């Protein structure tokens, strides 16, 4: 039985879940609540430069002024109590839960996903993963030879301000929304990556490794810059459930693809079902560049995430491929934004969502061709699959088009797994659950192909597990 299945009560805030009695032995702890002092404390610990300190304090002002986006968003947001959140915990060393404290169903999940022993412990937050630590340093060496910079946010801003500062907070300004402001004030952790001109990374970089070097905060900040002609694939998160004591996760991810560069950013989000996951992700694509988001949302209580691409240069290309799976008590509010700002730009959005039990999945999208552009194209497809009679799905796209020879097409459909399909498969000896899983995997299959192989294998298993008990 999967983690998300266990929580049927969506309404009250379950702050205890996943709280494996953390001993209070952090080296640095900014306390509960958010004030100027909290921010200053974070800056002191991180030894921020003056401009970063200022940036954080300004962001705090913005955060306080901005209203919650509750005029359109899920009312569940109102349940977030900003005064009860710890904004900064630095472990300094490895986390210190014990393996015995990890619940059995989680261990079972690892078992069935086929996650290696060492990784399981890391994923459960029990210990750092020494194997990958080693792998990380090996990888780092290779990358350094090519001139690639792969560091944490603090290190990136302190050591390489000439590279990162010009783009930091430019793709997603502090005032973009309340949660980007919150992140700008409190950010720590995340990856800062620079790929020099013409360097094409063959292997994907994984946040996974990065996590070890500096533990993933709940307000991580990622900035990836691919210089002219460079190519990079970045993978964040992983398929196993990630257990967090934090109830609010609010990241900011900025991608900058300069002329003819390519960035592919892959996320598999499987937070435990007490987490509010409110993430702002946006890429900037210069002339001939390509930014591609592959986004899978399986966990969390409420996810609000709409990866976007600003198509700034001629011939730029943007793509969002997303899979969302909402089980009982979950709301996956995801989507995509495509801002066409130059001629001959194209964008593609394919979103597939599956709602199980009382789960709710929402697609929210924006396609904007505001100026007198020529030859721009957008294609959007949203397909929703509803498993149970009380499952729910919504689609709210917004499309603005002007200009010459531009075409925009949006299509959405809602369907269920047909009784005939299930009957057919069961007749051939599959159990009802297996038949359902097969049908659902078939529904997302064409998107799965876009994933690296090992990810799609794990995702398939994960979907199988989520589907269990959903029929009958």
């Amino acid at each position: 039985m999967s983690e998300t299945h266990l929580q049927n009560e969506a309404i009250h805030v379950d702050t205890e879940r996943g709280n494996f009695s953390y001993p209070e032995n952090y080296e640095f702890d900014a306390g509960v609540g958010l004030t100027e002092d909290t921010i200053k404390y974070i800056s002191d610990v991180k030894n921020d430069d003056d401009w970063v300190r200022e940036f954080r304090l300004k962001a705090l002002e913005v955060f306080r002024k901005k209203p919650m986006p509750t005029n359109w968003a899920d009312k569940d947001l109102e349940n977030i109590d900003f005064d009860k959140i710890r904004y900064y915990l630095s472990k300094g060393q490895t986390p210190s839960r014990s393996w015995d404290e990890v619940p059995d169903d989680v261990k079972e999940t690892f078992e069935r996903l086929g996650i290696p022993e060492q990784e399981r412990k890391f994923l459960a937050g029990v210990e750092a993963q020494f194997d990958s630590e080693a792998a990380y340093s090996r990888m780092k060496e290779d990358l350094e030879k090519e001139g690639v910079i792969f560091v944490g946010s603090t290190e990136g801003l302190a050591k390489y301000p000439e590279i990162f500062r010009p783009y930091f907070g430019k793709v997603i300004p502090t005032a973009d929304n309340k949660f980007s402001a919150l992140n700008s004030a409190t950010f720590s952790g995340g990856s800062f990556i620079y790929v020099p001109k013409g360097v094409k990374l063959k292997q994907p970089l994984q946040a996974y490794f990065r996590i070890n070097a500096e533990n993933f905060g709940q307000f991580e900040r990622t900035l990836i810059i691919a210089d002219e002609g460079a190519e990079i694939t970045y993978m964040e998160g992983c398929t196993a459930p990630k257990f967090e004591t934090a109830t609010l996760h609010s990241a900011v991810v900025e991608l900058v693809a300069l002329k003819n560069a390519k960035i592919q950013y892959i996320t598999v989000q499987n937070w435990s079902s007490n987490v509010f996951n409110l993430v702002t992700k946006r890429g900037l694509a210069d002339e001939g560049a390509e930014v591609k988001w592959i986004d899978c949302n399986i966990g969390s209580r409420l996810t609000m995430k709409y990866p976007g691409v600003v198509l700034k240069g001629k011939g730029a290309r943007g793509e969002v491929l997303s899979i969302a799976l909402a089980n009982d008590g979950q709301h996956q509010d995801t989507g995509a934004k495509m801002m066409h700002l130059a001629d001959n730009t194209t964008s593609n959005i394919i979103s597939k969502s599956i709602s199980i039990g009382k789960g709710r999945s929402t697609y929210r999208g924006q396609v904007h061709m505001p100026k007198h552009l020529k030859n721009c194209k957008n294609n959007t497809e949203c397909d929703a699959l509803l498993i149970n009679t009380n499952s729910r799905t919504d689609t709210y796209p917004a499309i603005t088009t002007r200009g010459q020879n531009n075409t925009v097409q949006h299509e959405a459909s809602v369907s269920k797994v047909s009784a005939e399909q299930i009957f057919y498969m069961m007749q051939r000896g599959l159990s009802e659950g297996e038949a359902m899983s097969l049908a659902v995997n078939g529904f997302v299959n064409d998107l799965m192909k876009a994933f690296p192989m090992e990810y799609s294998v794990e995702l398939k298993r994960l979907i199988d597990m989520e589907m269990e008990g959903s029929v009958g």
Partner: protein
Amino acid sequence: MTPTLETPMESLKANEPAWLAQRRAAGLEQFKSLPMPTARDEAWRFASVGKLEIDDYNPAEAPAEATLDALSERSNLVTERAGRMVYVDDVPADFECIHHELTEKGVIYLPIAEAIEQHPELLERYFLKESTELGSKKFFGLHAASAKAGSLLYVPRGVEIDAPFVNYYWTSGSRSAVFPHTLIIAEENTKVSVVDVLFSETDQNEALNVSVSNIHAGPNAHVFRKVVQDWNHRTVSFQLDTTVAERDAQVKNVAVNIGASRARYESQTRIDGPGADVKMYSLTVAEENQEFDQRTHQTHNAPNSVSDLLYKNALLSNARTIFSGLIQVAEGAQGTDAYQTNRNLLLDPTAEANALPGLEILANDVRCSHGATTGNVDEAELFYMMQRGIPRRVALQLMVFGFFEEVIDKIDSDELADNLRKLIHRKFDSRLKSF
């Protein structure tokens, strides 16, 4: 806001029954207390609300007798009809009574003011009962406070009428505010059709229109309503329409929108009975600085029902259109088929089309889809025709009119369809020559 608009006319108050006075007072209160829409309101997204002003309009003074006659004369889109009503600035200009055969069967076709006097119990049940959920509550309030012109059509059980009832609502005076109301009540096993025509006397007379129409389609009632909106470019218009469909009812709405400087069209369909089938078609031709703001709801509260929406917009020069539609399938409304299509044809690079096609689905055994496309004339198709010897200009015309034809085809009356083609072509011909 002028004091005149906020004070319901004394004449209205005088003879009206208590329930109506109460609804008017509530409407006025709603109009006064609700704020003007802002750009932050989701229901007004993309609309240029900043330019929306309804100040300095007055309930119009009675037009001259000659004007009433002349405009009645011009009310000739449909010759074969079961009845006709003509209003100019909310003043009755002409009323063709229905055939006594229909009267004997119990059909009621009356101006609203007379209907209030003669059939108060019917009106109490239906008149001003369906407000809008699509954003214009404030303006619905204004309508409720001020509506005195309009028609009641009541068709009793089992009566089928082939010829349409035609209502003409003209504006004529300077900065006049009009509040036409069309109320259609079709009982079980009936068949009826209505045409509403919204016209301006000249190209110049400025006007504010806040019209409301309600269709109540009883079990297995067949209702067909057509709306032709061709205000002049100095008119600000709100059309707040609702349709309620009961078991096995079949309702078809066709709207052709050509005029007004700003036209907000709210169309709400609520399916309350299983087996109902509601169609919504609209064709809009937008040019110059016109803004057409269309908001629709298709709400399925009952299982095994069908709704289908097709809104087509053709845009020229600096025109803007906004289509915002939502299909809502309530929990338990299994077996729903709901479709929504919005097609925008951009004929000039400065025109802007916005589309917000939405779905909210709370049942799993449904077939729902929506599609929105925006684009220019397909060059490949043009090339195909030119290759076969058709000049580019003619080919373009054929394609644009072909785009319209899909909706005009639904009108189901050759005479009206021809008249609509004339209205649209008049708007288009001069432009197409310059392509």
